[in-house]
């Protein structure tokens, strides 16, 4: 069981660090095509920021809304990944062959860019969801996790 932290220093710093960490995670995700980084690392950083929110403000607080809601997206990242691959197959290429990604009015470089970007976003979503759900399942009993009517159970 994690209780909200009552130290003013921690709470204030948390308010500064969490947005910066989320922005950095997003940067790592997008920058992955040009340098070190990518979906997995970006997802981990974003998950860390949300776990930080849970640790500082508690799971019930409005500041942890994103961490609570992201648990419902557990299959979403994989669906994005498989969906992009499937679109390439519908276009006539192999699974994940971005040359055949069917998006009108795009040259080949942009097709590859969009394709890899979307799959990386898919990876990031799943890594973030997994990170948050590991943290939550290790630190709370089942009945302590606030849930909306049984969509995730």
């Amino acid at each position: 069981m994690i209780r909200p932290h009552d130290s003013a220093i921690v709470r204030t710093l948390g308010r500064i660090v969490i947005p910066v960490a989320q922005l950095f995670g997003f940067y790592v995700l997008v920058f992955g095509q040009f340098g070190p980084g990518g979906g997995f690392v970006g997802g981990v950083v974003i998950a860390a920021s949300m776990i930080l929110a849970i640790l500082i403000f508690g799971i019930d607080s409005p500041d942890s809304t994103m961490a609570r809601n992201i648990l419902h997206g557990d299959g979403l990242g994989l669906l994005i990944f498989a969906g992009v691959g499937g679109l390439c197959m519908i276009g006539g290429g192999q699974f994940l062959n971005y040359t055949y990604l069917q998006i009108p009015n795009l040259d080949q470089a942009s097709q590859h860019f969009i394709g890899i970007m979307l799959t990386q976003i898919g990876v990031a979503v799943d890594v973030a969801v997994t990170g948050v759900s590991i943290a939550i399942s290790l630190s709370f009993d089942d009945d302590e996790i606030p849930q909306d009517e049984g969509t995730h159970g």
Partner: protein
Amino acid sequence: MSSHLPILLFLVPFVMGVSMPILAAKRRSWCQHLTLGTFGLMLILSMVNLQVVLTEGPIEYAFGGWAVPVGIGWLDDPLAAIVILTLSFVSFISIIYGRVVVSSKLEKNVQYYTLILILVSGLVGVVFAADLFNVFVFLEVAALTGYALVGAAGGKSLVYALRYLLLGSFGATLYLLGLSHLYVATGTLNMADIALVLPGLMTSTAVAAGLIYIFLGLSIKMALIPLHSWLPDAYANAPSSVTPLLASTVTKVALLAWVRIEYSLITPGVEVSHVPVLVLLEEIGVFAALIGGALALIQTDIKRMFAYGGISHIGLILIGVSLGNATGFVGGMFYLINDAVMQAALFMIAGAVLHYYRASTLEQLRGVGRKSPWLTAALVVVAVAMVGLPPTGGFFGKWNIILGALEAQHYFAAFAVIASTLLTLGYFLRIFACWFHQPASVEFKPIEISKSMRISLGTICVSMIVLGLMSDSIFQFLLASVASGGA
């Protein structure tokens, strides 16, 4: 479109598994039907796949359009195609059977069905994967879902699931260590590519160590004696509804992964520091077949007995594929397909007896035979197949393994196959002695066997006989595929 069949076979259960929490969020009772439909679709696709592979030759699938040594490739050859067909068939039948015996807690549990679907998609990945790292990834996908499914019954099964997890993760780590050795030595992970480079490197200690690590890691996954200790407890306590699927597929697919590595990397007669590798593997198989059969003979719990029976058959298959000739190899592979079906049937019967009569030990089985003709008929057919009598597929597999052993003049291996057959006969006689025996104290009430149970038991028994009748054509195309170099 036919060139996309391998990835479609993977995506169908995978996408369904992932979207199950969304599709069945409001109506939990849909889970079962959706899963059944998915496996039905998979069954049709795998039949088409087998047809395409047999008429047009193996499909090599390059992901993202990158050619194989650089990119990731899947290989869909006749062996893979028929194993996938077996896998889809067993999954489909297991779900029909699961409708009867599934506990009320799991019946409408979304995660349970998601895990089954992802388990099957992981196994499909292992069968198709043409490079060592992909095999590792998909083995772990299948293993992780397997651990969760073993523990899904709750209670005591969680302990055995944890033990399975620890041992399985140890095996996966060994496999990864071995594959990194091979990667350092050869600079590639693609099996066909490694096979080109490796013959000149057999004197290297790193390669030998890598192969040993890979073999040990996969031995844990395939429950090869003496690394089998996780299996009997895990399968005896896992939910009855999913044990047929787990027992028939997980260990067999791990064995298939090893067979592919062995077949492409270890040529007959190769020696590492004067040890003939294939003969060593064959001796390990002999050991596993005999010890597994003997351990099955002394069990009193029927699920554990069947689990040990499966362990001894892993040894038999290993003997077949390690003989170094095509007859033994094809016999081993055919027996692998048969064994998948037989294990599914055995655990279905064990689960059905537990469900209808609350009987799990030999003592409690007394007199069941008089009350349930359906279960008795199924048990007789499975026993005939397990012992290996002619109309069933089990006979033709064992026959070819023995022929292969005689051809290689390894008489001890041929003797071991026959001895393990006798041990199999021994433990089935023990079951029959109790099955048909007049009950000592309790009289069972006659129980109506439900329609799903009849369909699943009937289909799986027919399939064992059909495998026997079709054995010749299956041997022909497996032999052709071995002769052409792919396996």
